[in-house]
């Protein structure tokens, strides 16, 4: 069965650079969630989208922005990267029929 696809899997950026993470949800899923998991931390909710509209906002810094496109894939744009942004970034998708969220493999971002 198709799963949530995230790209890239690994990303190394320098401080003050920008990064774009992509998430392709499970087909027919219309809700996408973004989470950030720091080293040894539990995942923290950043932002979510439902039917291409932002549905909720968590602890997402102002330097980050995200959107969901017409094909339901989502991109997380991160600017002015800081060392503290180094983390695993997860995307999860959910559909109307199911209430559970299915997670992608994550993108490991390292800021040096």
């Amino acid at each position: 069965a198709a799963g949530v696809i995230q790209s890239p899997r690994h990303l190394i950026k320098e401080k003050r650079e920008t990064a774009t993470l992509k998430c392709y949800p499970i087909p027919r899923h219309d809700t996408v969630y973004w989470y950030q998991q720091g080293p040894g931390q539990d995942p923290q909710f950043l932002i979510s989208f439902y039917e291409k509209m932002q549905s909720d906002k968590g602890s997402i810094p102002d330097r980050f922005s995200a959107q969901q496109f017409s094909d339901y894939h989502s991109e997380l744009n991160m600017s002015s990267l800081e060392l503290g942004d180094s983390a695993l970034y997860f995307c999860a998708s959910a559909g109307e029929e199911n209430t559970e969220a299915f997670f992608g493999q994550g993108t490991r971002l390292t800021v040096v």
Partner: protein
Amino acid sequence: SQELEQSPQSLIVQEGKNLTINCTSSKTLYGLYWYKQKYGEGLIFLMMLQKGGEEKSHEKITAKLDEKKQQSSLHITASQPSHAGIYLCGADNLYQAGTALIFGKGTTLSVSS
């Protein structure tokens, strides 16, 4: 705000032994999810519980939500090395805007052969 507390933080068991991981919520749970994570990898959905007293099983893993819907336990029978990883409980965050999940800090399970 709602918080999830998991115990124990880490656990080392011998292969073949049973074990239990607990997840306690500061508020009533309306949806409780168990995920497994291998280090540096994605979260694998295990089970979802919604009703008080509900119990679900998948292979050798059983999860239960207590009647008051404030605690869930995950029980692994006859543990195997493949069970090793980080177990996270997540809950529907209905006490704040939206329906994103909040997570516990996780329980790291090691299984020695």
